[in-house]
């Protein structure tokens, strides 16, 4: 299990150091600094093994968070924990920065005591933590009932939701957030593509409601024998999607999912991530990038890039950014584009072309002339052209079929709940070789 956790600033100075196990000595702090933060060669791997000690690190802005262990632990677990930890800290004091960490270090130690016990991760649910770890200091009079309530909640069966929540308006927000990743050959052949999606919910419901959630998962639909419904196919382009793997929030009853493939749960109050999933089949790629690179002699290069949007014309993509890498011996660039703004960014060795928005089934192009300094060094490796965007649909084709709320004790029905559903597709690593 996790032996210790250190937080460093960008210079490698230790801001937070918490050791959970005796096998981690003080020298581990320095070992990580010397071998990773101050390493001559930049360390790319998030896991580093130094003298039989494993260091798992993530970096947020200029802050390094590192977990240390001498045991053979599940790396996935450690990174999940680190990310959760960042999330918890953000919900307490906002941005992760050196100043914020220094100002809240008592709080951070308190949190670390709570969410890790002898190196084993504990309940890290923000809303629960906030009931007993506060920044304002504990009020002197905490009644016996409150105390016992906290205890029963933390240790009880439904640790993520306390009883007696009441809202005047029962509301529910559901976001389907997807990241689409792509690697495409210059000829337009898809080399690899996958979608990593999350379903994030915000629930403001009274009492202890029981929810049921349905999506167009192929398995579920095949089982209920409705996949061959012709009307469905025509409506969405494809009736069902094949989910490769998924993970759920702890509130979801896994036994029910396994037996009946239905997602039922008692939701936590406030914002939480209900599920995560990944698909690789039948992804509708929102954009197609067509590169054209021509080297004219040793000192000149011509680049032309066309992007085509490939979705319903009624939809509008936003925040589009195309990044065209330039050779390392570039000495000057002239760019011409019809739409948006394009600029050569020397500090990143790339031409960055930004478009505010773009409708579906359109196309746009940029052309650039790159002047080169003659160099006898090895040929340019031609890194891929990458792209960023945001589209208002789910590239995986996922659809929310229903979300039903049952609250047997309090008297409100499914129809009284106001539900909001939103789809956002973003680019992950969306690259086209040139």
């Amino acid at each position, binding site marked *: 299990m996790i032996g210790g956790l250190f937080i460093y600033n960008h210079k490698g100075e230790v801001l937070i150091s918490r050791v959970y196990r005796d096998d981690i000595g003080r020298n581990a702090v320095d070992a990580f600094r010397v071998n990773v933060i101050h390493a001559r060669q930049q360390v790319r791997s998030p896991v580093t093994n130094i003298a039989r000690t494993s260091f798992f690190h993530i970096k947020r802005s200029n802050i390094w968070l590192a977990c240390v262990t001498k045991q053979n632990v599940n790396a996935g677990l450690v990174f999940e924990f680190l990310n959760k930890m960042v999330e918890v800290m953000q919900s307490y004091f906002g941005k992760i920065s050196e100043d914020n960490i220094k100002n809240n270090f008592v709080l951070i130690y308190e949190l670390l005591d709570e969410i890790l016990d002898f190196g084993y991760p504990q309940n890290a649910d923000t809303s629960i933590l906030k009931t007993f770890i506060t920044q304002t200091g504990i009020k002197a009079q905490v009644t016996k009932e409150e105390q016992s309530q906290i205890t029963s909640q933390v240790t009880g069966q439904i640790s993520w939701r306390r009883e007696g929540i009441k809202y005047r308006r029962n509301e529910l927000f559901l976001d389907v957030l997807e990241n689409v990743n792509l690697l495409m050959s210059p000829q337009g052949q898809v080399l690899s593509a996958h979608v990593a999606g999350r379903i994030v919910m915000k629930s403001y419901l009274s009492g202890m409601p029981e929810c049921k959630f349905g999506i167009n998962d192929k398995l579920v639909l095949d089982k209920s024998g409705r996949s061959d419904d012709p009307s469905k196919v025509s409506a969405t382009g494809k009736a069902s999607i094949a989910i490769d793997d998924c993970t759920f929030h702890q509130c979801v009853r896994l036994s029910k999912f396994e037996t009946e493939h239905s997602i039922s749960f008692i939701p936590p109050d406030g914002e939480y991530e209900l599920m995560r999933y990944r698909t690789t089949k039948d992804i509708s790629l929102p954009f197609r990038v067509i590169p054209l690179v021509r080297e004219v002699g040793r000192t000149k290069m011509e680049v032309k890039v066309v992007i085509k949007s490939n979705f319903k014309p009624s939809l509008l993509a936003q925040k589009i950014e195309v990044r065209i890498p330039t050779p390392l011996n570039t000495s000057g660039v002239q760019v011409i584009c019809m739409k948006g703004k394009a600029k050569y960014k*020397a500090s990143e060795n790339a031409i960055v072309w930004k478009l505010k928005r773009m409708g579906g089934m359109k196309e746009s192009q940029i052309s650039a002339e790159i002047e080169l*300094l003659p160099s006898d060094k090895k040929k340019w490796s031609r890194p891929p052209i990458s792209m960023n965007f945001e589209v208002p649909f789910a590239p995986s084709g996922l659809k929310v079929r229903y979300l039903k709320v049952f609250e047997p004790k309090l008297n409100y029905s499914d129809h009284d709940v106001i539900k909001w559903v939103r789809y956002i597709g973003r680019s992950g690593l969306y690259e086209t070789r040139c």
Partner: protein
Amino acid sequence: MPTVAKGDAMRGLAVFISDIRNCKSKEAEQKRINKELANIRSKFKGDKTLDGYSKKKYVCKLLFIFLLGHDIDFGHMEAVNLLSSNKYTEKQIGYLFISVLVNTESELIRLIIQAIKNDLFTRNPVHICLALQCIANIGSKEMAEALAPEIPKLIVSGETLDAVKQSACLCLLRLFRTSPETVPSGEWTQRVGHLLNDQHLGVVTSATSLIHTLAQKTPEDFRQCVQLAISRLSRIVTSSYTDLQDYTYYFVPAPWLSVKLLRLLQVYPPPEDPAMRGRLNECLETILNKAQEPPKSKKVQHSNAKNAVLFEAINLIIHHDTEPTLLVRACNQLGQFLQHRETNLRYLALESMCLLASSEFSHEAVKKHMDTVITALKTERDVSVRQRAVDLLYGMCDKSNAEEIVAEMLSYLETADYSIREEMVLKVAILAEKYPVDYTWYVDTILNLIRIAGDYVSDEVWYRVIQIVINRDDVQGYAAKVVFEALQAPACHENMVKVGGYILGEFGNLIAGDQRSSPMVQFQLLHSKYHLCSAPTRGLLLSTYIKFINLFPEIKGQLQDVLRNNNNLQNADAELQQRAIEYLQLSTVASQDVLATVLEEMPPFPERESSILAKLKKKKPNVSDIEVKEGKKSSNPPTLNNSAANTPEATPASAPVPVMAAAPAPAPVQSASDDLLGLSAGPAAAVPVTNNFAAPAAPAGGGGLLVDVFDTPPAQNNVSTALAPQAEDNFFKFAIKNNGVLFENELLQIGVKAEYKGNLGRLGLFYGNKTSYPFQFFTPTVSCPGELASALNVQTKPLDVNTVEGGAQVQQIINVECIADFLDAPILSIKFSYSGSMQQINLMLPVMLNKFFEPVEMDATTFFNRWKQLNSPGQEEQKIFKATYPINQDNSRTKLLGFGFGLLDGVDPNPDNFVGAGIIKAQSSQVGCLLRLEPNMQAQMYRLTLRTSSNSVTTRLADLLLKLF
């Protein structure tokens, strides 16, 4: 030097550097650098030409980026352009960039060399200096080839400024070090020598460095420098510290120059001219005198400089080794340093004294400081200093103080550092053996050694003590008593058990009379250790037990019980099991008489060089020099080797009884290994033991049978009756050539022409009659003695005439076919009658094994793979020997090629070493041979290592090669 003008401050560079320094993260730094690089690229690309200032600025920035660890692949051209600028700062930055960034394969190197040449020929001394610095900084082979001829001109030219001369000397030195062959020696070498007389001390200092290095290569060219160096040295030494102004360092006149001059003088033997010699001795005396003066300053730099000169002077005195007074004075001076506060000084003093101890003049003087050294050994805090103290004690030891020194070293050994223990043990063992007071003392010492530092006592040491005890019958009883007492200690080291077991097994009867050490007591004592020992030791103890059965028949029952013990009879270790079974059988089957014969006392060992010494040399190669020197002069004190050699020797082969006696020992004596006793009890030893014990089954004929086993085959040499005088010399010449004169006297000349292909050879013999009278009945015959007949097939065509007319020549063809490997050469015997008297000449026909060699080419990896494959014992033969002929790279090369090896260049990292490969093509087998020959110039020695797939071929080739070098 021109100072940096205000406008040259390069603000842009300063801003850039401060930007980088302020970057918060690596990524930010990378971004800033990318931006700057793009900016510089666009500037360099720009059509308008840049002025020198901005070019310099950008090149500087590039240099800075490069030094931060980023790759720079442009800007070289701009840097080269800067070289042609006339401004000092611009030129300087250009050179800086080039010496840091340009690699030797660059296409620009021609341009650069041209630019450097231009600068070398200008009249501006500053530019010349910059160019010289750049050459020295790069110091590549191309540079050396292109520019080496120019630099000597600068050095010897009268117009050159002093500063330039200095730089030129150092630059040439650097080029000489990278590639000595590109620096041609010419008439300038003469004139460089005269730089020692230069007015300017800086020039002299740098020239001395150059001359020192050159003189090491070709001492003859610079012989005249000795005189100049001595006079220069004497001027420095006698001058007061105010005379030399700039070159006085903390009141010491020109310490660096003095040290260099003294080093230079160490290249040469002491000067023969008495006047010079006197002057040099005067100098050295002055230096020694100065050491006595009170220090002029308390600063550490002052004493450092003074001592540096002093130590170098002492080194020179030791190197010359001719002036007893100086040596003694040096020794006294070092003696003072032995008690100095400075650890470094004490270390150096001990080190130099080690050298002094080996000189016959100062040996006595060194001995005076023994007490101080011993205290140093005990009180010194630094282990390296203690190590030196041990070395010095070892060096100063002789017969007179051996007892004391050995006692001190032994007492120190108990507390010594683990890192130096093993070496100390070896040294104590050697000293005890070399300067024995008497043998009881020797035995006491070594046993003490085992008691104190048993873990560090290598096998050689205890082999040796047993060897000596066995060879000297006067100490045997004493040794038995002492080991018996030593074994009584509750915990004793395994090595002690080994020695005890062996000695009691041989001489236990000598102390059996005493009730306290009766046979039973001895046996019980040994057996109490038995279970704590490792398998080889147990094996040795089992041999002791069987010897006890012979010595003390009264305890036979108990001994047989031990042998019969299941623990031994069914031991997992095959060796122990076999011994137990065989010894048990031997003790039950054989009669007392047979036992007595079989288990006879061990015969004295034949004398060999003490292998402890070899071991020490292997451990510390640098000691060997001292050893060699010592060996030369210390031939007088009788060592154990000498005295023991006087005892009559009995070789195992000639006396059947000792062979049997040897049988119980873990390995037979006749084993050809270099082990002192051949006591190595490996599994291999099991085989001979079994052979021996085939005999007891038929006890009657046993003795005789065994003799046959070990008897060497009858001598084969009886065929080759008296070879002609020069035959042998000429014979070995043919190892590396095929044609030549084999034999010549006033009557007859025999020439040989030979050609070989694969396993076949054809020799043409030309018999020339040198007289004016005919040879009658001229009959040459070729015979193959002994086993050669089966290894070599020789067909001789008989001569068609049997008379050789005066002045005429007849030819004979001999066909040779190699069937297997061989050592001896066929014998050519010629009989003829000349003016009535019968003449006979016996010659060795120049047919050697290496004639059937075919060279093989392979690369380094294949070579080393094969080399590693051939690693079993016997396949490798290593010889270290003194060169008979002067060592010369080219000669050796031709010899090896003539010998038939394919030489593989570039396999060995050291270019002086030779690596070769070849295949011997015999009809029956083909034998691959690999060779490494490593010359050692200083010692005039060679190390030859041969590995072949056949054991016999290895030794035979090694013998042949040995005679060539």
